[in-house]
Structures are given as structure tokens and as C-alpha cells.
């Protein structure tokens, strides 16, 4: 790759960030406009319009490589690489963002509405960038673009002491985790001499061996730790219950969903779970057969680390979830546990049988499916709480929901739908997500090392799902089997109800006809024509040969 090619690749970045640019321009308009006129409806609507505009921009914006040059240049020189997966993540971010705008519509004070929604838009731009980041520094900047507006978001809707404590806690721990992440990135850079992700993968692939070099291992451990904060993996989960409890339901929904998307996407990209296709063409003439940039070799240690992380995260999350009386704390631990389930997909992503081509969805697809499903059910549950809470009468304890089926039959039914989806009962998105994750764990290459351990992970996963059922069911019991204590007010807020309905529709559609969601996800994954490069762990013979 020569310098001219690098320059052209850098210049070609601009068409790729049109959707993000639209979001940022919209955010600026909101920041400025908010100083002239307050009003939640006005600025909420403006945020929705911006999101729609970004969606249109996304539809028309090009994918990498922009110029009909070689893919290789775009891949190894450009800071951003918009493949189909990036487009998918941007789409998820925009739809999720619209739901979050609707959720928070009535919760933000009129005075702060513009700022709140503007921060939300910036944060979504950050997610979009994370999806397409092709380089460590860009990735770090995108993640910060997600984090910084979050601090403001936590302050804006409520300013009592618990809310301030929550925001402060989140701020400090988030900064700490960013530092860890940067530390890890620096080691990776120091070892590989490049910040470009595919190049990094190639460097690590070149030194293929079952044991990673120590430097790389330190770097990867730090990266996993830094991102573990965002996905609330144990032991980086401490902030979650306190922060969720201290803030409003919609902000909690945002915290439960958005950082997880960012964290998992970043993990998938940095650890090289998503290979890139290389199609080298000149004009229409195919110069190089489609190949796939090899994914990074993680050695034996990183999967083991992730195994431990997954097990501890889901088990601790669920066991502590059993003890909660506060519904937001309970959902916080549920979010921890769900991160654990998704980590199963990360553990086994490398060990899917090779040679079967696109034979069945593996760990990565399962994670992506579960992220969307999890988003729908968790945001939905928080949105129900948001609909029911009023500043005078916040829903805090699980007991506050007593007899909800009598006073608000519709909302109670939808809440039960979300809870059952979180349990993983069939006909909901949560079931299909769990099925895919467990399928991935069961379908590991039988000859892979530690195949038995991965199957054990599936067993631990289902036992956890059974434990979790106990506390989710408790909410259902309170809502349906008990009499109302102090009836909650009637709900008239259409934006909140719209958000709840959207989440419910997604939960049901993805549960009853999962192909509708799984097929786009599978299409977003690079097709591996030469499956050998996707091969999980190097065969011992191969490793020796090298």
C-alpha cells in the first residue's frame, strides 16, 4: 500500500460517515435551539426527524470500498470500513435510538429536553462509528463518543441526590475503564506496530502458535477488562445496580442497552471475530479471488478467560438478582446475567466447525441476535416502568406493581411478555436468542480442545436460565396473583406506550418468525468461501509446520 493509496483511502472516508454527520448536525441544532425554546414535544419530534434523516442517509450511503479500488487498500489504510455488519449495527442503533427517544419523551423536564435528546443523538453517532471503526484510535474515540454524552444524560432528567450519585459513579468508573482500554490498545500497538485492526489480526496471525506472546496477552486482557465495564461483565458490574436504581427508567434502559451494543461490537472487532472479505477488482474485472483476512489468533488463554468471565457473570448476576426487592436493581442484575449469556457466544465463536461453510449460525450471529432481542425486552421492560412512574409516584419496589393486571391489564400483559422473553420462554425473541447461544456452545468443533468445557458452558447457561426464571417470575406473580396495594395512575403518555408496543412487536416477531431477524444478520456476516482461514484453533500439525 503506497502513500497515494492511503491518501485516497482517507479522502474516501467522508461519504462513509454521512449518517453520523446527520446525527451530529441534528444534535447541534438541538443544542442551539434549546437555548431559545424549551419544550419536550418539539425537541423530541426534532430528534425523531433527525433519526429518520440519518436512516435515509444510511440507506443511500455507500459501503466500503467507496472508490472501485482495491479492497485491500480500503481495509488496511482507512480508519473506517463500512461492511454489511457495520450497516446492520447502524440500523440497530437508529431504531433503538428512536425507541429510546420515545421512552424518555415524558420523563425529561421541558427545560432540558433539547439537551437530553441532543446527547442521545451524539451517543448514537458514537455507536454508529463503533460499528465501522477499523482502527484502534478511531474505535477508542467512538467509544468515548458514547460515554461522554451518557454522563450528561444521567444528570439531566433528575437532579436529586441518588441521581447525582449514580451519575458520578458512572463517570468515575467509566473513565477508569477507558484508561484500561487505552492501556490495552497501547500494548497491542506496541507489539504489532500498527493500529489498523485487520493488520493487527494479520500480525498476530503470522505468529500463529497456541500460546500468545505475553505482551499481546496483557493487551487483550486489558481490552477485555475495559470493554467488560461497558457490557457489565462481572467483576466490572458494580456500578450497574446503583446507577440503574438512582436514575430514571428510560435512562436505565439506555444504560442497559447502548453500552452493551458498543461493548460487544468493539469486542467482536478488536478480537477479530468478524473477518473481512477481500474482493480485489479493477473495474468489473476480478483480480483476486474472494478471500478472508484471517482472524486474530487468541491462543488458548483468551477463550479460557472469556469462559471464566461468562460463567462468573451469568451466575453472579442471576444469584444476586434473586435477592433484589427493587425492580430496577433486579433488572440491573438481569442485565449483568444477560451479558454473561452473550459472552457464551464470544467464547465459542472461534470454535464453530470449519468446512461446513455457512452451515449454521455460530456464536457471532447468536450474539448479534441476542443483542437485538435483549434490547427489545429490556428496553421494553424499562419502558413499562417509565410509563407507570410519575415524579410523585416512582415505581421502585417490585411490590409497587402489585395487582397491575387489574389496574393496567394491557401494560401488565406486555410486561409479562418481556419477562417471559427474559426467562427465555418460546414464542419470544429471548428464547430464540438463547437457543442460538446454546446451539453455538453445543455445536463447537468436536475435536477442538476443551470441547467438553464449552458444552459445560451450555449446561451452566441453562441452569442459570432456570435460576433467573425465579426472580422474573416473581414480578409476574406480583402483577397477576396479588391484589393492588396502592393503585398506580392511569397512563396517557402516547410516546411511552408507542415505545412499549414497538419493543413488544419486535419481541414477538423475532420470537414467532425468527428468520425475519436472523437472515439479515447472517447476510451481514462475511461469507467465508475459503473456510480454512476461519478455522478455529490451528491444527497441531499446522502449527508445528509453521
Amino acid at each position, binding site marked *: 500500500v503506497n502513500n497515494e493509496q492511503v491518501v485516497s483511502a482517507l479522502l474516501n472516508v467522508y461519504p462513509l460517515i454521512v449518517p453520523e454527520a446527520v446525527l451530529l448536525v441534528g444534535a447541534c441544532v438541538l443544542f442551539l435551539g434549546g437555548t431559545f425554546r424549551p419544550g419536550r414535544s418539539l425537541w423530541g419530534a426534532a430528534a425523531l426527524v433527525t433519526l429518520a434523516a440519518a436512516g435515509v442517509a444510511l440507506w443511500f450511503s455507500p459501503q466500503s470500498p467507496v472508490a472501485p479500488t482495491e479492497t485491500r487498500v480500503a481495509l488496511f489504510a482507512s480508519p473506517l470500513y463500512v461492511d454489511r455488519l457495520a450497516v446492520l449495527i447502524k440500523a440497530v442503533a437508529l431504531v433503538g435510538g428512536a425507541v429510546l427517544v420515545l421512552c424518555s419523551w415524558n420523563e425529561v423536564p421541558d427545560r432540558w429536553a433539547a439537551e437530553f435528546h441532543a446527547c442521545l443523538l451524539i451517543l448514537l453517532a458514537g455507536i454508529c462509528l463503533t460499528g465501522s471503526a477499523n482502527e484502534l484510535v478511531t474505535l477508542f474515540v467512538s467509544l468515548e463518543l458514547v460515554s461522554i454524552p451518557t454522563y450528561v444524560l444521567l444528570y439531566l432528567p433528575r437532579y436529586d441526590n441518588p441521581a447525582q450519585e449514580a451519575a458520578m459513579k458512572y463517570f468515575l468508573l467509566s473513565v477508569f475503564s477507558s484508561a484500561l482500554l487505552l492501556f490495552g490498545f497501547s500494548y497491542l500497538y506496541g507489539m504489532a506496530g500498527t493500529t489498523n485492526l485487520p493488520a493487527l489480526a494479520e500480525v498476530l496471525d503470522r505468529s500463529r502458535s497456541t500460546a500468545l506472546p505475553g505482551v499481546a496477552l496483557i493487551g487483550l486482557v486489558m481490552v477485555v477488562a475495559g470493554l467488560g465495564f461497558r457490557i457489565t461483565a462481572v467483576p466490572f458490574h458494580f456500578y450497574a445496580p446503583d446507577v440503574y436504581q438512582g436514575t430514571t427508567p428510560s435512562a436505565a434502559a439506555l444504560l442497559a442497552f447502548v453500552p452493551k451494543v458498543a461493548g460487544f461490537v468493539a469486542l467482536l472487532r478488536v478480537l477479530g471475530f468478524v473477518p473481512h472479505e477481500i474482493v480485489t477488482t479493477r473495474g468489473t474485472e476480478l483480480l483476486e479471488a474472494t478471500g478472508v483476512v484471517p482472524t486474530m489468533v487468541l491462543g488458548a488463554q483468551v477463550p479460557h478467560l472469556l469462559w471464566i468471565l461468562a460463567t462468573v457473570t451469568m451466575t453472579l448476576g442471576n444469584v444476586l438478582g434473586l435477592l433484589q426487592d427493587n425492580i430496577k436493581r433486579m433488572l440491573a442484575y438481569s442485565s449483568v446475567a444477560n451479558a454473561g449469556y452473550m459472552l457464551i457466544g464470544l467464547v465459542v465463536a472461534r470454535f464453530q466447525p470449519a*468446512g*461446513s*461453510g*455457512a*452451515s*449454521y*449460525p455460530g456464536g457471532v450471529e447468536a450474539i448479534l441476535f441476542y443483542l437485538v432481542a435483549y434490547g427489545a425486552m429490556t428496553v421494553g421492560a424499562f419502558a413499562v416502568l417509565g410509563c407507570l412512574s410519575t415524579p410523585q409516584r416512582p415505581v421502585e419496589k417490585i411490590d409497587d406493581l402489585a395487582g397491575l393486571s387489574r389496574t393496567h391489564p394491557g401494560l401488565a400483559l406486555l410486561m409479562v411478555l418481556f419477562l*417471559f422473553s427474559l*426467562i427465555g*420462554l*418460546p*414464542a419470544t425473541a429471548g*428464547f*430464540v436468542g438463547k*437457543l442460538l447461544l*446454546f*446451539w453455538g456452545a*453445543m*455445536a463447537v468443533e*468436536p475435536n477442538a480442545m476443551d470441547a467438553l468445557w464449552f*458444552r459445560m458452558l*451450555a*449446561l451452566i447457561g*441453562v*441452569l442459570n*436460565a*432456570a435460576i433467573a*426464571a*425465579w426472580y422474573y*417470575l*416473581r414480578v*409476574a*406473580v406480583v402483577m*397477576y*396473583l*396479588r391484589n393492588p396495594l396502592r393503585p398506580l395512575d392511569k397512563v396517557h403518555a402516547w410516546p411511552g406506550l408507542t415505545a412499549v408496543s414497538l419493543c413488544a412487536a419486535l419481541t414477538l416477531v423475532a420470537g414467532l*418468525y*425468527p*428468520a425475519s431477524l*436472523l*437472515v439479515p444478520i447472517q447476510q451481514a456476516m462475511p461469507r467465508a468461501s475459503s473456510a480454512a482461514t476461519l478455522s478455529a484453533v490451528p491444527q497441531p500439525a499446522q502449527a508445528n509446520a509453521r
Partner: protein
Amino acid sequence: MPTLLLLMLVLPLAGAVAAAALGPSRGEAVRWTSLLATVASLVLALVLAVNFASLPRPEGKRTFLPEFVPGAPGLIPDAQGAVTKTREDPHATSWDLLPLGRGAIQFYVGIDGLNVWLLVLTALLMVSSVLVSWTSVTERVNEYYAWLLALGTGMLGVFLAFDVVLFYVFFELTLVPLFFLIGIWGGPQRQHAARKFFIYTLTGSLITLLGVLAIVLVCYERSKDWTDNVGELTFSMPRLVEMVQTIRQGMGRMNAQELALWLNIQRWIFLALMAGFAIKVPLVPLHTWLPLAHVEAPTAGSVLLAGVLLKIGAYGFLRFCLPLVPDASVSLGAPLIGTLAVIGIIYGAFCALSQDDIKKLVAYSSVSHLGFCMLGMFALTAAGLTGSLLQMINHGLSTGALFLLVGMLYERYHTRKMADYGGIAARLKLLGFFMVFICLTSVGLPGLNGFVGEVLVLMGAYDLQMSQGQFPLLAAVAVTGIVLGAWYLLTMLRRVFFGPVKEPRVEGHGTVADLNLRELAALLPIAAACVALGVYPQPVLDASRRDLQVVADIVGTASGMQGAAAPAEHVEQVAEEVRR
């Protein structure tokens, strides 16, 4: 016919939606809608069963062959990939739910000999459940019937499913309605009972799901041997059964290590599958949820729980364990489950004997009777399997009717303590008559249904151990279970229905009347079915014979395999037998 089958499955669900939509204030409309939906479903089930029984069933193929499958026949992906599919697949349908690479989870439902009578039983008990709840449920009527009817669809779906994951989906979907039925309309401890029932079953069934995934994946991996390393990924139960047969044919060529591995895999899968089914049956150490759930559930809930839902566990063993992991079923299942079943028979009977609560007595009698069912099944002979299937239906009818009667009695006097009653037969003649009659069917009086099943089960259990040159201990102990069964049921009859009249005080209710027309309508069909099955069970047995024979043949080839240590020449011989 496939349309009728779908209609039978969907009608209760449609009724549920309609009932929920009608609102709590229009109780009468809700009740009649539910009755209409369930009766229509029953009629369809009968039509389908009669049609099925008159079908010529192909012999020879060693797998299940469901009839009346909705959708076009599925297509087999050719060797190169999933893109073009040309050949028709006799073991699949075109209705994909979730494509997974080369295979797909499908909406594959149908009727064969194993499920046909269980479907009729389910549809019949649904009608009775609706009738018996007519006046006893007055609170949140629309919700009640909606959950009840949704449960009906779930139960029919479990029996109809021929896709392994679809089976699991329906299996779990039966939990939700019953959870609400017990939790909202149950007795004083309803919340605890509902949660215990839910968690217990969920835990087991999740492990079962892993077993199901494991069998699919094992077949996929091993199928690479005969598909040019492409592999065949299928979730179709009949196809999986065939594939397991093909793998077992290759057992003769395996060396000792491979054989041990294969048998070991089977053993683990068997244990995983067993986790869910054994809880559902329930086998004895795992039965603790049952008395609580039965006692706390409203009458209709108990009827369906005992009549249908417990059968799902036994049916799961029959449909999954025996044909899919036959070697483990023989080497591990027969001794383990046979023993647990016999312990269950005796333990359940003694527990029933010591109860003062009539409903609890009936609940424990279920543990005992299901023990018979499992004993027959794991006798692994055609006679035992037939007896087991018959015992499932018998128990559904008898125990379902017993719960109906207990519910009717409770509705009149608001107590279930035997000590409060005496000589009721003199007071309520019809109710007394039906109670005596149903108790006799349950005890196994010759000429009534219970007798046929029990004899077949005992014959099977006797054969099993005699053929191995052992003393038929299991059958001998099980026989005492029958005696105990007669003891506790007749004791209950004597205390409650005969002797000096002693009526519980009725507070705030009108005079106690005998059975009315609605209650008779709920009971009569069941009683008629009991007599019919006792006098002339042949048509029922004929319709199921072919598929039971398939299962018996499959486990028959595995019989005598004593775990991994089986001598090689014996394996060769077994493989030879499979080939024939």
C-alpha cells in the same frame, strides 16, 4: 385432513383470544365460546382419529411416519449446498420456522400411532374442564377461560409436534397458562405452588433442550460419514430416528474405543433428556412439585395436569428416549427407570394411603399409576409398550374423572377432608355411583379399562426379567402396588361414601343437590370411554400397533447390549439384525 388437523390445534387458541376479548363482564358468552371451541376441537380430533385408524399404515420402515402433515413435503438439500433442493423429503415439511444453515426448525406436525389417542384424550378432557369450571369460577372469567384454552393448544401441540425443537416449544408453552391457572384461581398456597411447578418443570426441560440439541448435532456430525463429509442437519424426529439407526448399523465396524465413546454419548444424552421428562412424569425423587400443584390447582387445572400434562413426560420417554438413544435406554434406562418406577408405585400408594385430603390422595395415586406406565415402557417389549400407552390413556381418563368428582364434591361442601364426610352415597346418589365406578376403573377391575393396561404392563415387566434369567422382582413388587391401589381407593370410598351419613356443615350455600346435567355431560363421555376401552380395546391398540412395533423393534435390537463392555461379536450380530 391436514387442514382439519391445523384447525383442531388452532381452535382452542382462537377461542382463548375470543374469550379474552369478550371481557370479564360477559361470563356466559365466554363460557359458551369456550365450550364451542373445545367441543369443535374434540369433534375434529375424533374425525382425525377415525380417519387415521382406517388408513393403511406402511410396514417395514423403521421410523415414525406422521400422517396428515400440513404443508408440502420438504426438500432434501443436495450434496453441494443448501441452494438447490430437488428431492422430496418424506420426513419434513415445507413450513420452515428458523432456517439454520442446511437444516431448519420446522412447523412439522402430524398424527401417528403414538399420539393419536392422546390427542383424543386431551380434547375430551378439555371439554370436561370447561364444563366443570362453569359455576366454580366466577372471578376474572374471561382470563380464566383464555388461559385454559391456551393450555389446550399447548398440550395438543406437544403431542402433534414431529420437530424436536417444536416439541420443546409447545412443551414450555404449556407451563405459562397452567402457571396462571394455578396462581390466580388456585387454593390458599397457590403462589408457592405455581412458582414451584413452573421452576421445577422449566429447569428440567431446559436440560432436555440441551439433550435435544446434542442428538441433532451428533447425528449431523456422524452423518458426514455417508454424505461425502457434508453432513445432514435435521430437526425432524422421524429422520433423526432413521439416522440413529444408520449410525447403529455401523456399530459393528467400530473399534472398542469408538463404541465406548458412542455408548457414552448416548448415555449422557439419555440423562439430559430424562431430566425434563422424569420431572414431568414424575419419577419418585423428583415428584415433590406434584402434590402441591395438584392440590392447589383449580379443578380443571388438576384434571388437565393429571390427565394430560403428566402424560407428556411419559410420551417424551416413548417418543425421544427409546428411539433416539436406544442403547442407553436399554443399558441405563431399563434398570434405572424400572427401579424408580417400582419405588414410585409403592411409595405413591403408601402416601395416598395416609392422606386425609381426598385431592391429595388422588394426586399421590397419580405417582403410583404413572409408575406402572413407566415400568411397562421400560420393559422394552411390544406388550409392555402397548400396556404403557394404554395406561397413559387409562390414567388420563380415570384420574381426570376422579379430580372432576373431587372438584364437584368440594364445590358442594367446601371441604376435602375425608373425616368430614360419611355416607355421602346415600345423599348424592349419582355422584356416589360415578365415584365408585371410576375408582373401580382406576383399581383395574376386569372389564374396565385399567385392567387391560395393567396386565400388559405386568406381562412386559415379567418377560423382561425372566428373559434375563432373573426373578421377576419388579413385576412382583408392582403387583403389590395394585393391591395397595385397591386399598386406598376403597378405603376412601368407605369413609366418604358409605357408612352412617355425615355431611359437612354447609355455610351460606343453598341445599346440596346431586349432579346436574352439565356435570353429567362432563363425566359421561369419560365413563363411556372407560367401559369401551375395557371391553373392546382392540381398535385402539390396532391403530397404535405399527408405531409401537417400530419402537419395540428399535429397542429390541439394543436389548442385551450391556453397556460399553459388550463383546464385539454380539455387536456384530446386533448390527446384522438391524440390517435385516
